């Protein structure tokens, strides 16, 4: 088990360390303008020095990302159950949900801002718009893929439709729900930051925007924010993976 895990994370870690070292060497050798591409060492130190501004930004954006994901999961749950329960809803709604993915969600950001202003709500809405689809499709397909033998068995026990949903359909759809949620997690911070680019009072998007428009330009802090977003996304992904384990204790580990 331990050696297996070691084998999983060691190769990508080595590649990453090598890439960062190469980057540092290239900058140190004077091949790049440090104003445009600061070295990784410099990025880490100047971002560290700017903690007073970075932490509040992280807090705001994390709040937007998490609340947006929760809103997406709640909406996906309601719509997926409705689609699975009523055939007319399925026929009328499912094709439209899929078609709605042709709308570039980024293009909705200005609209969302016009409607809900500069506060927390438009960010939550935009994150939810980005995150909704993978969770909804995962749930809908998971519910539809329920083992028909199990459903028939419970029907012979005179189970109600609610009992079928709670005891068979939903537990059976959980793995695909979490697969969808993990995909959505990777969108959440990005969506929140796009919304902040358009207009915000605080957050990582605004932090990057300010750094990019400072004089002289603070490329190091833009890099720092990007690294922070990547780390935060990994952390959120790990939290969801942990929830998945707690929610499905019957799954074999390993």
């Amino acid at each position, binding site marked *: 088990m331990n050696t297996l895990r070691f084998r999983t994370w060691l190769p990508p870690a080595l590649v990453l360390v090598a890439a960062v070292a190469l980057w540092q060497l290239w900058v140190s050798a004077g091949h790049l303008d440090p104003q445009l591409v600061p070295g990784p060492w410099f990025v880490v130190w100047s971002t560290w020095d700017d903690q007073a501004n970075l932490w509040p930004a992280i807090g705001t954006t994390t709040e937007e990302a998490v609340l947006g994901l929760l809103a997406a999961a709640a909406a996906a749950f309601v719509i997926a159950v409705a689609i699975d329960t009523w055939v007319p809803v399925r026929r009328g709604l499912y094709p439209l949900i899929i078609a709605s993915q042709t709308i570039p969600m980024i293009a909705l950001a200005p609209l969302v801002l016009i409607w809900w202003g500069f506060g927390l709500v438009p960010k939550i809405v935009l994150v939810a718009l980005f995150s909704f689809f993978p969770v909804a499709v995962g749930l809908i397909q998971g519910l539809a893929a329920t083992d028909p033998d199990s459903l*028939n068995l419970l029907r012979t026990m005179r189970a109600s439709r609610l009992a079928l949903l709670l005891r068979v359909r939903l537990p059976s759809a959980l793995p695909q729900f979490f697969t969808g949620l993990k995909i959505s997690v990777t969108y959440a911070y990005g969506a929140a930051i796009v919304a902040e680019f358009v207009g915000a009072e605080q957050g990582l998007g605004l932090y990057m925007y300010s750094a990019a428009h400072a004089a002289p330009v603070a490329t190091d802090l833009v890099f720092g924010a990007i690294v922070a977003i990547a780390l935060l996304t990994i952390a959120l992904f790990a939290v969801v993976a942990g929830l998945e384990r707690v929610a499905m204790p019957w799954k074999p580990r390993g």
Partner: protein
Amino acid sequence: MTKRTTTQAAAPDQHSRAASLELRGVGKRFPGLGGAAPVLAVDTVDLLARPGEFVTLIGPSGCGKSTVFNVVAGLEEPTGGEIRIGGEPLADRLGASAYMPQRDALLPWRRVIDNVTLPLELRGMSRREARGRARPLLERFGLGDFVRAWPWQLSGGMRQRVALLRTVIGDPALMLLDEPFGALDSITRADLQDWLLRAWASDDVEGVGATVLLVTHDISEAVLLSDRVYVMTPRPGRIAAVIDIGLPRPRTPELRADDAFVALERQVRHELQRAITERGEFSDQEVT
């Protein structure tokens, strides 16, 4: 039969509910898909199981045995004939029998004990009371060490025992077993047949004494467990022969070596082969 009578006298509250099952000319026609001609899965099936009898339906694969089962269980409606349970022609048969599907259909997200208590919970019994009832039975079914295990941790034979316990725990009047050991290797299958025989011979297991309809394509299983065997033809299924298994009860696994047992096996095999070849010639004629 005599064994059943004494058992009934010993614990009347447990077995008095055993219900008769009667099929009169039951047929099932499925609508053809995409404009195709309708498919006649089951032609006419007549079958009788008196209260407490163990009756087997045997036939080649695809003869519509499982369709008969789904119709009796109330999952599907017959397109012809009548089904009587306990003497009554029941329109809504869901819940009138306990059903053990071909695949065990254990819910992976429920521990062994919670899979077993499922029918009790759906009936409104508290989880605590249901578990209290399941625990001693799990011991008797040889699953005492696996009460809190997840289904994936069990062997195929153990899974079938859990599924069978789930079927008997509600003390059903009628049990439908659809090839319960069909997916197991032959050693495990024989082991479970012997075990089922012993469980049936004991007085104190709930559900034992219920009327049973078993579907199988295992001749030895049919003879060992049944009071009567109905032989079905290939699709569209109908009853080709009825064979009474007069072997005395309680039966033991050693019975398999008995001359009378072997003779009955031969008889069932003979009827089965005749049903297949007759139907085969018949369909040849249809083609030409």
